């Protein structure tokens, strides 16, 4: 396949549905060959953005550019894009072959050439020889592959994927995810992916844009957004987090000391949390997997130690999550990948959580 990928730029994209703002003043640039993901809960505006990029929806304001060319008013059939829909949108009255060939027919590709290109696309997704079937005769995973073949067979400049894996069962989803990333790297095509699944986003993407209520919250590499979430929403949406309110006491080279509302002091690494001054109101953000449960009388040993009572244990075999009520009354979640250790503690027992200053992330409270 001879793909000529484009870069995609959106400027000031804005879209309302009746009284609700679906996408508010969105601007970003997606590089050529990138695997770019819009991540967010349902209703965050990610699909609306994708549909505006596809041309299926006209923005109220703003523009969409492919390689710098303004395509805002160009209808989808002239944008040369491939798209996979959440429900695959296979045409039930056409065979697999006809589905895949549809775009080639529309492009007036010579008849003799179509058969070969359809077969090639089907081979690419592992469905060689299935062209004669009807969509209704295929499994969910196979339908997904047909949708993918249909999207790439036209050698699009841009591939759009709208939650393509959400209708598959867990096992198949993992398998398809791997194949998808392989295919994208192999074709080198600019790909925009929409999902509400953080694992998919982190694993597939070169960059992730986290959206919330029509606004772009953060944009960056998977590691960026996970390690350095810009705000509590991003932190919580990506991986989950405990949030404790506090005030910066002192800032030294060794670390930042934050006094929690219960009076206990938490030390955070100064390297990771820069730009704070004593007196700043902050939110202390702790990932559950960074918290270690220890007996109540355990020594801090260079880490932070918070005391409380174990309220709830959820045993999942390979993983256990616990809820701890801190002395100040706040509830936090901890999570351990090796539950055998933690099973020692009974519900209702006094307990302490230990965590390293490296794992403490401070988020500045909005003024």
């Amino acid at each position: 396949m001879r793909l000529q990928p484009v870069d995609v730029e959106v400027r000031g994209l804005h879209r309302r549905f009746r009284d609700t703002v679906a996408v508010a003043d969105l601007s970003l640039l997606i590089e050529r060959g990138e695997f770019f993901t819009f991540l967010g809960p349902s209703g965050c505006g990610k699909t609306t953005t994708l549909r505006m990029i596809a041309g299926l929806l006209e923005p109220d304001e703003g523009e969409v550019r492919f390689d710098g060319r303004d395509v805002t008013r160009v209808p989808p059939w002239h944008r040369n894009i491939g798209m996979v829909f959440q429900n695959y949108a296979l045409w039930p009255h056409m065979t697999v072959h006809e589905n895949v060939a549809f775009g080639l027919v529309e492009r007036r590709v010579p008849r003799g050439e179509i058969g070969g290109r359809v077969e090639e696309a089907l081979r690419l997704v592992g469905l060689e020889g299935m062209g004669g079937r009807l969509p209704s005769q295929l499994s969910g995973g196979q339908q997904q592959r047909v949708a993918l073949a249909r999207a790439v067979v036209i050698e699009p400049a841009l591939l759009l994927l709208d939650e393509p894996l959400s209708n598959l069962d867990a096992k198949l989803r993992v398998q398809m995810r791997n194949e998808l990333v392989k295919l994208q790297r192999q074709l080198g095509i600019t790909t925009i992916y929409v999902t509400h699944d953080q694992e998919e986003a982190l694993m597939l993407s070169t960059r992730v844009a986290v959206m919330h209520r029509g606004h772009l919250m953060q944009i960056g590499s998977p590691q960026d957004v996970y390690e350095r979430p810009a705000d509590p929403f991003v932190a919580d949406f990506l991986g989950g987090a405990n949030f404790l309110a506090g005030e910066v006491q002192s800032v030294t080279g060794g670390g930042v000391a934050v006094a929690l509302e219960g009076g206990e002091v938490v030390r955070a690494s100064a390297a990771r949390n820069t730009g704070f001054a004593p007196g700043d109101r902050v939110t202390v953000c702790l990932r559950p997997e960074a918290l270690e449960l220890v007996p109540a009388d355990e020594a801090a040993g260079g880490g932070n130690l918070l005391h409380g009572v174990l309220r709830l244990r959820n045993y999942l075999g390979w993983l256990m999550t616990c809820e701890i009520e801190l002395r100040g009354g706040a509830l936090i979640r901890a999570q351990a990948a090796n539950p055998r250790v933690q099973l020692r503690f009974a519900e209702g027992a006094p307990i302490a959580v230990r965590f390293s200053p490296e794992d403490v992330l401070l988020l500045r409270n909005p003024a």
Partner: protein
Amino acid sequence: MDPGHAALMALLLAILGVFVVLPIGAVLKVALTGAEGGVTLSHLARFFVTPLYMESLANSIVAGLWTVAIGTVLALPLAFVVARYDFPGRMLVVTLATLPLVIPPFVGAIALMQIFGRAGTVTLLAQDLFGLRLNIMEGLRGIILAQALHFFPFIFLTVTTALVNVDRSLEEMGQMMGAHGWRLQRRVVFPLVLPSYVAGALLTFVKAVDDIGTPFILGFKNMLGPQAYLRITTVGRDDVDGYVICVIMVIISIVCVLASNWIVSRREYATLQTGARAPEQGRTLRGWRLAGVLGLCAAIIGAGLVPHLGVVLLSFSKVWSLSYLPSAYTLGNFAEIFLRAPRFVVNTLVYSVGAALLAVVLAAAIAYLLQRGRVPGKGVLDWIAMMPIALPGVVVGVGFLRVFYGITLPGIDQPLAATWVIFVLAYMVRRLPYALRASHAALHQVHPSLEDAAGVSGAPRLRAFRRVVLPLILGGVVAGGVLVFVTAAVEFSATIILVSRIEQSPLAYGIYVYSQSALGRGAAAALGVVAIVIVALGTYLANRLSGRGKMAFTL
């Protein structure tokens, strides 16, 4: 708002305005305008102090109620047996029980006269064997019998569907609480099925009041529809009373349809919810119970098929006078309607096909706007297009006559109402709701993403519509069209008002004309056979196309 959509909506509104709103508006206007202009209720008030009209009102309502009552007596046992038991021939029973729908009640009436009338087969048998003097078809009774035998499948279908959809666990819960047998039915099942039944019964009532063909064929004039017709045709097109009667009919009809819709909208608790268990196979029957159930089915279905039998016999009869069966047979009746006077059949086909085509195009456009349109106020379109469901045929006919007699078509120098086009338009309006529902349902099946997918694959909207949407909705839309065709082919109420010359008259009026000539009953029955064949084939086709096992007639 999309300007293209707005333009399409304006066009559709204009069409519906002219052909739906204007006629009904004209009827209302005449009925509510005083002698010196201005709105008045005095004409309406006069209706209620005129003995003949009050008698007609009472007769119409009484006949409708009895039709529903007898229909219920025929339908309920059958529905219960079919929904609750499993026995050989169960599906055959379901199919046969819907057959009465293919025979228009005014056709059935001709046959019933021949079977149950003063000189009918059953009457003569009763007289000769038992010395009984039966008089089953006299006056209202004949109308009620003809309508009940035609309409009971409506009730049968609604109740069967409701019974099958009753969540079994609700019943089992009732059993665990200690109710069983008749008590279980009465305390758990009946209350669950009741709303569906009432909704179905109300619609049957509306259809029964709407049907003026049966009273006409049986020569009974003291009912609302016939009175409206008589006022308009013999007293004159400007006679206020005719319009007042129309308004009364509309009010009855609208009240019933609204009540029915309201009940249906509140009924969800009775039907399958998420997590509810699908209905199970019914209890298997054996021995004398099986014999009893089969006997019951045979008796009810037998009664329902009497009109079919009578019509076919009569259509081949040359002389059938005071004998159990015809005493001389002939093919002459079919020769008459196919060779000597084929215009009835030809006209019917032309009008019904025309009405179906127009209705389908309109309905598809309306459904598209309603589901995909980006234009404010599109609900009005739905509302107007569905309005004819509550408009009796007489009223449509009278409204059309009122409005379109004043409009002369350029070129042919005739009022629009005097040309045959008026039939196509009236049938189209009258059955538009059927087409609209079918288009609606069909388009609903097509997820918008299928169209989007075609768009991003490179197909502009029109090609996407043609290659993707159209093939997918075609079956349903055509099924709707066939339904329009079928119901238009046997439309009597609007026809009798609109027909002006015999050359233009369709089959339904032909049946009336033949039945009004002393020697024409055979030919009327032959036309009736044609009507049955058209309706039966069309219904079968519509069901095949729409891909549902359910009778599309219950739309």
